[in-house]
């Protein structure tokens, strides 16, 4: 289990995310595969005109609907691999590999 993350919820599009940034654009996660160290926040930004979600297949995290222009942040706490997707767009799939804390 990767442990609970910190959900920042909806942030304004002008906020400066730190850590790893992932875009949701043209109904895809970009990049679709990332490797991060435990404790490094990951921020997803919805650059599309429709809502998306960031939902772990193993239930580790679930952003709920992320409206266009909004962001979602989650910080993994333990090493492991988690696959996630957008529940509204079945073709949007991605994976995160969490390494040891740097």
């Amino acid at each position: 289990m990767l442990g609970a993350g910190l959900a920042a919820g909806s942030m304004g599009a002008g906020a400066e995310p730190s850590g790893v940034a992932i875009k949701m654009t043209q109904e895809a996660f970009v990049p679709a595969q990332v490797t991060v160290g435990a404790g490094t926040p990951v921020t997803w930004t919805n650059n599309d005109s429709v809502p998306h979600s960031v939902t772990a297949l193993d239930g580790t995290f679930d952003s709920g609907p992320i409206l266009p222009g909004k962001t979602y942040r989650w910080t993994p706490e333990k090493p492991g691999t988690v696959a996630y997707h957008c529940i509204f767009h079945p073709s949007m799939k991605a994976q995160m590999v969490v390494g040891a804390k740097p």
Partner: protein
Amino acid sequence: MTTQSKMLPLAAALAMLSSYALAADKPNDAQIAQIVVTANSIDIENGKIALKNSRTPSVEEFANLMVKDHTAVNNDATALVTRLGVKPEPSDTSKSLQSGADTEQAKLRGLKGHDFDKAYLENEVAYHKQVLGAITDVLIPNAQNAELKKMLVDVKPAFQAHLEHAEKSLAALDKH
């Protein structure tokens, strides 16, 4: 007679799904699997027709998304039923769905420009409404296998998002 005032052939076929709720025979898991694959395949083909016939960027974007998403659902559904050892079984409903779609798709292929965009999006709105209703009222209640049932439950938000996207695209089209 406007497109909106008549029962589209595909929508009529999809409405048959509701009759299952009242009929003595309910779809089994194998029939549900075939209905799911058929319904997804229909919208994939609808999207491919739109990518050929439409010149409107928002319609092309929607169609491309339908092709990608319904392909993904079909891939996941096929992988699941293969793993479960369920062989999709044709039924009167899946055959009627396909027959209705064949008629609708033949009509769409003959249209272009604004006429095409309007007909395509109107069909997508009707189609997604009907499929959502069928998933909720017929397929989920009758699915016996827990994983198949969960897959149907999990796909509902996507179909709802597709419906809302189609309605929004149609509304934007009608403004021009």
